[in-house]
């Protein structure tokens, strides 16, 4: 088809009255439509074979009501729910809030702060399993680096961080924040770079400085992004297996397990796959609303400022 023909073919579109945008949607020309479908097919195939099917399979495996009675009767399920709520609730919110504050720090145009940023994002670039293993050995008790530093600097005899449920859970949360805070800091940093300077200049004329500038300008502008990131991070963190499995290992005696690791233990160590799937799928009633809110937020507004 020559260019002229294409222009001619496009002609009616332009001449017909009504919103041009809608017309274009309906008149995706034949060959283009085929190409568009061809471009989408690879992902659609992946989506059906590896998202829809496994989820349906999991729901089917977890559909037996007696599994849930078994779960609640089990010794670890209820404490695991509490751990999961704490791990996700504290971990995500502390991480996000610190990331938002630190993005302001890294916004400052100093050469040493730029250099520091490169080191600061190192945890994100470090492979999760290896970083978590390092945390494990760092906190292993008097043999580890943390207790070594405590006794060398302050003469305190540090605890074994994995002998106590709350210390173990705290260690997991710290390792989690360490690993993922840089990623979100960079996301917020990218958004804050885009806030036009004039807004701040205008605010400064009106006398807004320091924290008031943050509360009345930066935060309202970033609120939507902040919410989207928090929701997305909540979903990801609920599924965080590596941190808990490789830092505290769920111990002592399974008291720091979260849903992801408990499901794994049931499925692969206790050889009760259906029970393992039921354990993790019991979080679905919480997950679905989060996803719906997330989709709405993403649809109604752009992610950026």
């Amino acid at each position, binding site marked *: 088809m020559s260019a002229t023909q294409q222009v001619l073919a496009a002609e009616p579109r332009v001449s017909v009255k009504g919103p041009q945008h809608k017309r274009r949607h309906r008149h995706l020309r034949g060959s283009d439509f085929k190409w568009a479908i061809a*471009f989408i097919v690879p992902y659609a195939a992946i989506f059906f074979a590896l998202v829809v099917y496994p989820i349906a399979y999991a729901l089917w*495996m977890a559909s037996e009501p007696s599994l849930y009675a078994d779960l609640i009767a089990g010794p670890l399920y209820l404490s695991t729910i509490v751990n999961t709520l704490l791990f996700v609730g504290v971990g995500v919110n502390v991480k996000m809030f610190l990331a938002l504050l630190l993005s302001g720090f890294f916004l400052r145009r100093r050469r040493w702060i730029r250099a520091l940023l490169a080191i*600061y994002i190192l945890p994100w670039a470090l492979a999760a399993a290896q970083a978590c293993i390092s945390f494990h050995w760092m906190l292993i008790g008097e043999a580890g680096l943390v207790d070594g530093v405590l006794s060398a600097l302050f003469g305190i005899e540090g605890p074994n961080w994995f002998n106590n449920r709350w210390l173990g859970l705290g260690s997991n949360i710290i390792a989690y924040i360490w690993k993922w805070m*840089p990623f979100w800091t960079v996301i917020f940093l990218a958004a804050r770079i885009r806030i036009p300077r004039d807004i701040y200049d205008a605010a400064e004329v009106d006398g807004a400085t320091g924290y008031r500038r943050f509360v009345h300008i930066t935060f309202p502008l970033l609120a939507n992004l902040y919410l989207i990131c928090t929701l997305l991070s909540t979903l990801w963190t*609920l599924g965080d297996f590596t941190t808990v499995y490789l830092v505290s290992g769920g111990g002592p005696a399974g008291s720091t397990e979260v849903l992801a690791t408990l499901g794994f233990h049931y499925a692969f160590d206790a050889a009760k796959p259906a029970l393992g799937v039921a354990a993790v799928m019991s979080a679905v009633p919480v997950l679905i609303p989060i996803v719906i809110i997330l989709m709405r937020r993403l649809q109604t507004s752009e992610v950026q400022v």
Partner: protein
Amino acid sequence: MSAAVDLSQPLRLARRRYRLRRTLTEAGSVMLGVVLLIWSLAPVYNMLLIALDPEEGEIEFDGNIWPPEPSLEGFRAVVTQEARYLENFWHQFGNSLFIGLSTMVLTVLVGSLASFAVSRMRLSKGSLLTNAALFTYAIPASFLIVPYFRIMHSYGLSNSLWAVILTQVTFAIPFALLVLQLFASMIPFELDDAARVDGASAVQLYLQIYLPLMTPALAVVAIYALMLAWNDYLYQSVLLSVRNMTVSAMQGQLFADTDAPWNAMMAAAIIYVLPPIALLFALRRYVAASLTMGDVKG
């Protein structure tokens, strides 16, 4: 005359107060910088501390805060594959690399094609695809490990690196679509229209306009996909057999084993974490460009 004195006095005070506040802010930010430096590097330092130990055994776990006799013996044992548990290190490293790079290439390819069709070809109901993709995150990846384990078996992919690659691609693409869509909305449609008039086909638009203009976003997606695969422990340890493992799976399974030669294990960990850092460093220009690209719009 006296009025001038009255005016200069508060001015000088204000200036002094301003200077004091600036010094305090500066001191505060330097302190924060030091804290962040220690916070970010402590686990990395711990890795080095253990890796630099001269021999395996209890010596690395004496609560040292400084390596007593630093030695590269651990690294040598890894490179020559002499250390216990690390006999197949380079084979495992090769597997990790293959999984990482394949995930990266497939995510960029499949993601950019789908995103191009949705955002540039004005496909009606295209946004449905992005929403459906987000649905992937409704159930976190780790929750689906049991179904995946069985499904991969029924697909004939048990103990295949491709099983891991496919799962990683599945979970990388939704985020990739999000990022790509965001950036694609910044390319003016007039460019496509002009190329159309010159007779460009959909494939040419994709290859000659979309891909070159989207390079920063594609770099971000590529890094994200590689990091996802490089970070994965669960899928690699479950879907692969002991004889065909990756570095992550091998190290994770030995993570609490006090009998393992930890100086060599930590040396192996350090070798393993280097490639993404190198890639990030190599692509830093694109990443920085993608971070400031919003200036065009904002």
